[in-house]
């Protein structure tokens, strides 16, 4: 019963996320209309078969723009998780595995940083780095390191004294080998859901930052940036805000359902 439920949750999530990912992938090579083509006579058209999500204030096709926007959002989220994940795993693995003074100091700093929300941390980095797509990735990636490092550290500290690690050490495996070949694969049950949550937080953070006008800026398009545009025409073109928002919701929902399903699989 439980097993079945988990699978349905995971499967539904996978379907939703895959659909949206497919939109993004197709959007890289082909969109129904040129996402930047301005047609003065086709302003604020309501959704129809010709324009699935309608058109915006410049007569641009919102569906095409959404496809490109998802692409940017995806790119930023993946990049963020990659930077945060890789550095977080390395920091967490070494501190958790070796422990000691360095561990203590780093974890103190880590605690202090997690007292501070990811997004605000990223905002501060953006203030330092300046705007733009790549700076958003860098800022978010760095801001996400502490939370990943904490998760990984806890796991490594737990596994460090387990028997399989001891026996690997007795057989003469080096520390690096033990960390990456023995322990790391065993932490995937915790790590994968954490990466998924991280992905969602990154989508959320990118959307928030671009919405605030300090993330992605024109000519780039991202979901958050579109929402910012859409809000100004909320009453004339409500479909604009609704369609773009719905895509974000679905993306986050899909990934979180996948993560949930996987988390339950561990028990």
């Amino acid at each position, binding site marked *: 019963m439980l097993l079945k439920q988990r699978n349905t949750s995971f499967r539904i999530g996978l379907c939703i996320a895959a659909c949206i990912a497919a939109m993004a992938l197709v959007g890289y090579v082909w969109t129904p209309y040129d996402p930047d083509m301005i047609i003065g006579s086709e302003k604020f058209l309501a959704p129809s078969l010709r324009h699935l999500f309608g058109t915006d204030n410049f007569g641009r096709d919102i569906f095409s723009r959404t496809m490109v926007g998802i692409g940017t959002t995806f790119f930023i989220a993946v990049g963020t998780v990659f930077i945060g994940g890789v550095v977080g795993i390395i920091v967490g693995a070494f501190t958790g595995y070796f422990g000691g003074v360095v561990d203590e100091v780093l974890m*103190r700093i880590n605690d202090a940083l997690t007292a501070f*929300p990811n997004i605000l941390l990223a905002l501060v980095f953006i203030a330092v780095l300046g705007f733009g797509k790549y700076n958003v990735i860098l800022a978010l990636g760095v801001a996400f390191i502490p939370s990943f490092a904490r998760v990984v550290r806890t796991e490594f500290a737990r596994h460090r004294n387990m028997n399989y690690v001891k026996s690997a050490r007795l057989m003469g495996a080096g520390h690096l080998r033990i960390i990456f070949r023995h322990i790391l694969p065993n932490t995937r049950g915790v790590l994968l859901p954490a990466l998924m949550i991280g992905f969602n937080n990154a989508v959320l953070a990118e959307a928030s930052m671009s919405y*605030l006008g300090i993330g992605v800026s024109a000519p780039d398009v991202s979901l958050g940036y579109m929402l910012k545009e859409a809000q100004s025409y*909320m009453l004339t073109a409500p479909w604009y805000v609704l369609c773009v928002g719905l895509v974000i*919701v679905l993306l986050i*929902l899909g990934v979180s359902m996948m993560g949930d399903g996987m988390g339950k699989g561990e028990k």
Partner: protein
Amino acid sequence: MTMKNIVKKVLMMILTMVIVSFFAFLAFQIIPGDPTTKILGSEATAESVAALRAELGLDRPFFVRYFEWITNALQGDFGRSYIYNMSVSELLQGKLCVTMLLTAIAFLMIVVLSIPLGLAAASCRSPWVDRAFTVLGQLVMAVPPFFIGILLTLLCGLVLHWFDPGTFISPADDFGRSVVYLLYPALAIALPRVAMTMKMLRSSIGGEMNKDYVRTAYSRGNTRLATLYRHVLRNAVVPTVAFLAMTAADIVAGSVIIEQVFAISGIGRLLLTSISNRDFPVVQAIVVILALVVVLVNFLADILNQRLDPRLRLQ
């Protein structure tokens, strides 16, 4: 809670604040781009730049400046804004209240909504209700707070005319109307958190219901509901309070973002303009103050949990 515990916690808080303030200060020292360029423009003469650097105190060593900044900050003096001809604390004064009020309302909403709802969901044993709560919760959790804010503006503001978006009044001018306006942004922040807290509470109630002391409670003739309220609730609330404290940071962050949606002139909007203007003294001050709020909330949650669970008082 013993005195020793409190002292230890307070020391930890101070250490955290030292680290945060240090990083906040450091971050704005290592960046390229001198604030003088921003203030004077790129065509300023070398002498005028040097004069301004001396005036802003930028020509002295890093640690001297950090130490000076932190001692002043402790007395409520965060320096002067580069852009506005005002001290940072003057600039923050009214806005900080607004943001704190918004955060407090949101926090209150989360507690008031999620704990009774979580209990109701746990009391009701119908699998359909259970499933409905799960699905609804999953959905609500996936909606970004600022998008909920946009939807609320659209629905309650523009369509139903329950409030007039963009007409926020400072609580100092009309506290009542201010609070009423803030209910909508607070709801936008609170909704996803309510769903998360409910999920948390339900799962911890579920875990507690399998414990031995629940069996003992039944053996004394308690009904399921009496067991739930008299025995399980207090045990289950402890991890929930810890969870709420952990999300305090996100609630504060949520306020900062939602202010933009509802055009509220709080600390969040100030932070955004200061970031755009590279007005670093303001950004630094906001960073430190927000971190202090988060740390204080965590401290209070710790004390509350020690009141709720006597076992925590030992550690």
